[in-house]
């Protein structure tokens, strides 16, 4: 038997065992849910969750909630990137900017974004702006610190080599610094999205804004609609998974891997 077929068989066995585990786990859950040990309102059966999810998807409410959540995350993330990317690059290039911004960033970074929710609610009122601001706060620091260290990690030899070959400041920036820092910047965007995704769920629960996946879960709790909560959890997990795997995965392939930067950053 060749090594390749052996590897394929091992993979098949792994997939088989993974599927078996999931089936077993689902069966266990179903058995506990049906046994009546816990009230059915607290532990809905899987078919019930699936039908609720299907119904919510069909009448469009779930999509609308997901749309609102996505809007908050992406808008907040966009603001955070628009602020942190230039600032991070400036911090990496100029000592003065670094000396001014770094102490502030390291003092603000350890404060979890959700701690600001009550303060922001007082200042800006309940609603969208609080959720978006919390997302901005959560996403800002990973982005800023990764950009900064990415620019600083650019090999000074490359800068001098480009300079010696007659690159002006502009060419240096676009052709050397940006590609050189790109692996860090993309890691930054990725971490920023993860933080933002966590923060938006919390902000929606606390700043009660009528629409959004976090609000759905929190609202369903009031009416003991555990099936709705589980359905919303599944949607949140699916969106997070899709973003992490598909969006950032392909982004990485399209940029840093093509430029051959990943190994330099990871090694």
């Amino acid at each position, binding site marked *: 038997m060749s090594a390749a077929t052996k590897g394929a068989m091992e993979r098949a*066995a*792994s997939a088989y*065992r*993974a599927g078996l*585990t*999931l089936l077993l*786990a689902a069966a266990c859950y179903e058995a506990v849910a049906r046994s009546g040990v816990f009230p059915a309102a*607290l532990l809905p059966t899987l078919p019930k969750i699936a039908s609720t999810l299907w119904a919510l998807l069909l009448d469009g409410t779930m999509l609308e909630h997901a749309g609102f959540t996505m809007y908050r995350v992406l808008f907040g993330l966009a603001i955070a990137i628009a602020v942190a990317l230039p600032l991070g690059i400036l911090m990496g290039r100029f*000592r003065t900017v670094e*000396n*001014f*911004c770094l*102490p*502030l960033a*390291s*003092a*603000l*970074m*350890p*404060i*979890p*974004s*959700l*701690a*600001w929710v*009550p*303060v922001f*609610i*007082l*200042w800006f009122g309940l609603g969208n702006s609080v959720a978006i601001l919390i997302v901005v706060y959560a996403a800002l*620091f990973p982005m800023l*610190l*990764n950009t900064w*260290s990415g620019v600083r990690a650019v090999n000074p030899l490359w800068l001098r080599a480009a300079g010696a070959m007659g690159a002006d400041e502009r060419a240096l920036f676009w052709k050397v610094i940006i590609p050189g820092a790109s692996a*860090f910047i993309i*890691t930054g965007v*990725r971490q920023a999205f*993860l933080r933002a*995704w*966590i923060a938006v*769920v*919390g902000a929606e*629960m*606390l700043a009660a804004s009528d629409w959004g*996946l*976090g609000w759905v*879960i*929190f609202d*369903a*709790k009031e009416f003991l609609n*555990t099936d709705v*909560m*589980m359905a*919303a*959890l599944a949607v*949140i*997990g699916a969106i*997070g998974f899709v973003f*992490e795997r598909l969006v950032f995965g392909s982004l990485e392939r399209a940029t840093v891997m093509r430029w051959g930067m990943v190994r330099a*950053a990871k090694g």
Partner: protein
Amino acid sequence: MSNFAPAASAYVPTAGIPAQRGESGWRVAARTALPFLVVALAWETTAHLDIFPRKLFPPLEDVVGALLRLTSTGVLPHHVLDTLIRLLAGFALAAAAGVAIGFAMGRSRRAEDVLLPLISIGAPIPGLAYAPLFLLWFGLGNVTAVLLVAVVSAFPIIFNTWAGVKAVKEIWVRSAQAMGADDRRLLHQVILPGALPYMLTGLRLGLAQAWRILVGVEMLAAVPWGLVWMIFGAREFLNTDVMLAGVAVIGAIGLALEKFVFQRLERYTVVRWGMMS
């Protein structure tokens, strides 16, 4: 598993203020203090111009006053202590379970096949989304807070321990076995030190995660004492000075966890063993 990337690729930013060559300690301190002074001055000016109501935008002396008042009456220490106990209880559960599961997954193919799908399904859901569910199942209060912190912070610990155990070079294991090491010594003297840099990264990410989640959970779970609960409660009475004092204490605790717990731990273990520079 790139969202809980292991030590080699996860850049865990630890912003320090690097001392530049030929600079005295005083200059570094002054340079670090300057931005805070500028921000404080801007804050003070805005607060005293009365653009915003003083209740909502208190000047810094009010915030410091609130901090001192709450500390001297013993209210703040009580809140802080309860929050820290919750954090440590949750994190200890997560560390014990996470390291055990991660080790099992790293050493046994069977455990990996069984556990990985379950964990990969749970991990992408932000921890706070589970909070209402846990509240229904376990009721308001401490049990929910501690369990949620434990579950959520276990994920990065599991992933990193698993990656660390798998990253132990096969040749080290085989040479140790060839030199007659039994399973126990293999675990203690080869696999554990080999996996430790990853495990520490996992524990560090886990602790940071636990801290962020705890902040959210305390607001939702209506625990009687707790730092974040204090902030949330102060909102009802428009005590913005108390809220800002609380936020400052939260930041200080977060910073202290990073600086005094993990950087120390790292210096005593992996750096000394030469696993990391």
